[in-house]
């Protein structure tokens, strides 16, 4: 849909971009973690890109599929230009953290909390990085591929003779 947007972005951050593709018409750039805030600021403020909307922040766990293990995925949409761009940031398992973009997009507030809750991705500089879906007592991050499938963390015990499994 918007090869120009992708090319304009990669032209500005040559040293940061690891790879790009446009599979199924979805323009995607895989970038390094450092200078993420600069890149997102550029996406938002550059008049030719004008990505006013950060529509999704999520994560993927590629355990046993590829290295590095995690990828954080950002989806941007420009309302005025009607084009989209996807940014992926690979993260090592031993340090799954990257800068928060809440200061640039308010919508990141809950979506970053969700990625933290379910994948354990730490967003540095997030003003309120708490669990958002699971309860406070919950241990671990349930969408990680190494979370035990039958592991339950009930808040109340089952009735006598019953089991939570």
């Amino acid at each position: 849909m918007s090869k120009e947007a992708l090319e304009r972005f990669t032209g500005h951050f040559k040293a940061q971009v690891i790879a790009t593709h446009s599979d199924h018409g979805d323009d995607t750039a895989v970038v390094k973690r450092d200078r993420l805030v600069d890149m997102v600021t550029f996406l938002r403020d550059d008049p030719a890109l004008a990505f006013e909307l950060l529509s999704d922040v999520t994560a993927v766990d590629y355990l046993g599929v590829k290295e590095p293990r995690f990828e954080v995925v950002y989806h941007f949409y420009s309302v005025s230009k009607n084009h989209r761009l996807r940014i992926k940031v690979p993260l090592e398992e031993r340090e799954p953290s990257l800068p928060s973009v809440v200061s640039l997009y308010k919508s990141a507030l809950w979506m970053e909390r969700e990625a933290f809750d379910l994948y354990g991705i730490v967003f540095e500089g997030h003003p309120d990085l708490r669990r958002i879906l699971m309860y406070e007592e919950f241990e671990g991050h349930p969408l990680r591929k190494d979370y035990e499938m039958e592991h339950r963390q009930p808040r109340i015990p089952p009735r006598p003779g019953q089991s939570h499994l």
Partner: protein
Amino acid sequence: MADNQANLLQNEAAVTTVEAAEGFFRRLLNKNETVQEVVNWGRRWSFFQYPFVTACCGMEYMATAGPRYDYARFGAELPRFSPRQADLLMVVGTITHKQAPILRTVYEQMAEPKWVISFGVCASSGGFYRNYATVQGIDTIIPVDVYIPGCPPRPEAVLDAIMMLQDKVKQERRALLPVVK
């Protein structure tokens, strides 16, 4: 026969109701009916439900409440939104472990006598959500009287469940006044 009485007899529904009521009171007078049976009759025709609606099954719950299926015909007319005023807890939809303490509290807040209908496969067994988040059937945390299968169940199944619960209440022998232990 007076005109208005004739009109009443032409109305079939009115005839049935009047006859049913007549038969009921005649048997009462003949002492063929025990007090317990009378009380059970009152209870099973006046369920006050508390709809604990959490998910998509709620749509079918509303369809059952609406005029086409209309469970008011079974006396289950009024949903109460305080558990203190309800005697039938309808658990409609997926219950997560996060909600489980809330559901149990609501159940405990209801006064005796009380019954529970588990509406849909999610409430009955967790349904296809066999995962870290979902309670695998609400009967692991509170007792259940009638289960309704289906994802979601059709309104006919819900009405069937209400009728099954009525049959169950009809058989009941429980203290008529609260017993203080």
